[in-house]
């Protein structure tokens, strides 16, 4: 009986939003809303200026987030979706559920941004992270020729996995399958998601793990541990740009626009680097936190346009499967 009362208490605590302020519901991925993600600070900062109630709802990851929106369709409770990346933009637009926005900003992205529906809020480069005291290969060919062991994520179940697939495709085009065949004996294993892969790497199961160039910043800033480094690949690094958009069916269009404007402002952007461990889309006036200056900066940025990414994905995936299933 007591348990039930506690349970009921917990439930009502979350469902009871008892004041009459307008409510803005933002769907995002789970790690954004976790206590260590940007969510709590973003909520506080936005509620301080909007006279509204910001309701962040976490869904597993970016891909699951889009599925949730498609599942809910036009009756979705979401006003804004935050956390898709460029690889999902075409599929997202095809649903017709998203509305254009007029938000613009002076983006610090290494590429030109010109999408009238999706607004970027952070970005990063995929990279292999290794222990700083061990040498790392300089490109995929060198990795394939050597015996460095890596752990990667599955492109069918994880965003970084899909990023790596497109990275190899963007860098090598027709030769991608050959590169994968060469990498087969370097790949210790393929995991479902980022957490598994990174956990295995920290346990010493491999020399390198697919992550981001910004990962060493976490260890450096949060743990004062300079032992991790990202390997700079000379064929360039594939980018991930994370975006948000307003839903066409929102009942709070002004508030949604206000949130997107807020998202590219200093108040939001300065939270990103040390909570989401990505580069902010707009460099805040205070600059990047100390430690980010130690990160490698790729000489070349690789990124398929949204439509192109959607078009090559299928083929790249079957090349990947073919090369690694031998």
């Amino acid at each position, binding site marked *: 009986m007591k348990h039930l009362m506690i349970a009921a208490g917990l439930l009502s605590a979350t469902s009871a939003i008892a004041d009459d302020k307008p409510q803005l519901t933002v769907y995002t991925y789970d790690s954004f809303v976790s206590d260590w993600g940007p969510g709590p600070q973003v909520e506080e900062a936005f509620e301080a200026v909007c006279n509204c109630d910001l309701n962040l709802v976490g869904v597993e990851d970016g891909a699951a987030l889009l599925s949730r929106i498609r599942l809910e369709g036009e009756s979705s409770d979401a006003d804004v979706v935050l956390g898709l990346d460029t690889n999902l933009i075409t599929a997202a637009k095809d649903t017709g559920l998203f509305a254009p926005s007029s938000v613009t900003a002076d983006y610090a992205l290494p590429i030109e941004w010109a999408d009238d529906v999706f607004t970027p809020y952070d970005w990063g480069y995929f990279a292999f992270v290794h222990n700083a005291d061990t040498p790392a290969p300089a490109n995929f060919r060198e990795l394939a020729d050597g015996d460095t062991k890596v752990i990667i994520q599955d492109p069918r179940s994880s965003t970084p996995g899909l990023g790596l697939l497109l990275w190899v495709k963007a860098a090598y085009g027709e030769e991608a399958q050959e590169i994968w065949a060469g990498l087969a004996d370097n790949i210790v294993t393929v995991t479902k998601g980022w957490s598994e892969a990174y*956990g295995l790497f920290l346990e010493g199961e491999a020399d390198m793990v697919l992550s981001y160039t910004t990962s060493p910043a976490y260890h450096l800033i949060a743990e004062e541990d300079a032992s991790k480094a990202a390997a700079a690949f000379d064929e360039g690094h594939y980018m991930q740009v994370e975006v948000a958009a307003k839903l066409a069916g929102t009942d709070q269009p002004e508030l949604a626009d206000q949130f997107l404007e807020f998202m590219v402002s200093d108040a939001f952007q300065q939270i990103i680097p040390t909570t989401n461990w990505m580069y902010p889309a707009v460099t805040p006036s205070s600059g990047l936190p100390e430690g980010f200056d130690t990160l490698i900066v790729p000489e070349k940025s690789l990124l398929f346009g949204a439509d192109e990414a959607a078009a090559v994905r299928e083929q790249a995936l079957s090349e990947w499967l073919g090369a690694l299933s031998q």
Partner: protein
Amino acid sequence: MAGRAQPVSPRPGIGAAALVAALILGTLAAVALRAETAGGFGPADWAALRFTLTQAILSAVFSAGLAVPVARALARRRFRGRRALIALLGAPFILPVIVAILGLLQVFGRAGWISDILGYFGLPPIRIYGLHGVVLAHVFFNLPLATRLILQAWQEIPAERFRLAAQLGCNGIAMFRLIELPMLKRILPGVLAVIFAICLTSFAVALTLGGGPRATTIELAIYQAFTYDFDLGRAALLSALQLTLTAVAALAALRFSRGDGFGAGLDRALRRWDGGAPAIDAFWIIAAATFLLLPLASVVISGFAGLFEMPAIVFRAALTSVIVAAASTAILLMLALPMATAVATGRYGIVELSGILGLAASPLVIGTGLFILIRPLANPTALALPVTALVNAVMALPFALRILVPAARDVVTRNGRLALSLDMGRKTFFIRVLLPRMHPQICFAAGLGAALSMGDLGVIALFADPQIATLPLQIYRLMGAYQMQAAAGGALLLLLLSMSVFWLLDRGGRWHAEA
């Protein structure tokens, strides 16, 4: 007809089974009906099916096969710490997948303890990734479960039978043939079917230990269909395939596991007189304990430091998990007891079948289906905890039934006629005879159900809300935020909590007091 009179009614059990079937098939239908395109199988799906079947069959055979000598050794030997060891052996089963994988690799991985020792002698590290790695991991998860189920069946053999066999001068082998083999024939098909079904829906374990896309399972294809392709038709079709495979396995198991119980005993203390070959028993106990406890030890060691670094939110999540586990256990017993009773009173294989389907149902499909069904009526996020408790209960149902059905059958066989001749009502029989006679099994099932619910991520991730998290979800969140040490601490906390819950509940039901 009087001839088919039963001391207890099968109707509530049939009702419960119908509810479970409605939940599993209803959610599947909800997903299928919501599909925009009709799904179909591609060549990759056939490869996934082949791999899924191969690893599930191998995992079931090895888990159950190895469990027999371990359970026999544990049934024959009495030593200090035996009960604690048996309780600890249940631990792998209740760990969140990711924690168990990390624990296993700490021992068997490229940089694991065994490879370290090999390296000391100049030998290369062991290669764990591949089909054998998948099977190893599944044996790690399921050997304890199989051991517990078989051990329980062993302990349910009335002491009188062993006494008789001993009196007849049976040696170990003869006693095995006479008493134990028939028991194994009865219990093993069910154990095999349950483990087969568990491994059928394996995804993260199979992929990670399998070492790459060769180790693609149907569940991964379902995940991909849901999240990356939003192909609900395909997801529903693949899930239906999993359910069909499980149903076939379950029906085969039911066919093969027919057989009579051992008749009545008088609750004498269980003693064995076939004391031969203590070295062999010791070998099996030590080997199994080492295999299962080393990865757990690594979870404990790596979690110890993190235990003191955990933010308060982890403890709140732990409380939530305890509440969910309590609710889930209550639901589990309300479903499992009537269902076990129904199965015991006759050939209600269909009831058992609906029970086992809970294992094969993809959590993604159940979760998404529930989401689709609930959404028009209520905010699914507000129902995250009740839904999680319900789904956890359904997932634990097959285990509870494996535990409860043989006992219920024996109680009905042994005491049914007497109760009928006394004109005892069906409700009275249930309360005054069935429940007390099955007390140990009920406690065991409740303990297992509670521990499973504690460790299972279940569907909460689909419904989650930043303010509400169960402990497994919180552990995943910590890992996703680079907080590996705190996550390891959370895993240790989870392990401790689950084991305590299991221990407390199971302890309530000691049976066959030691001689």
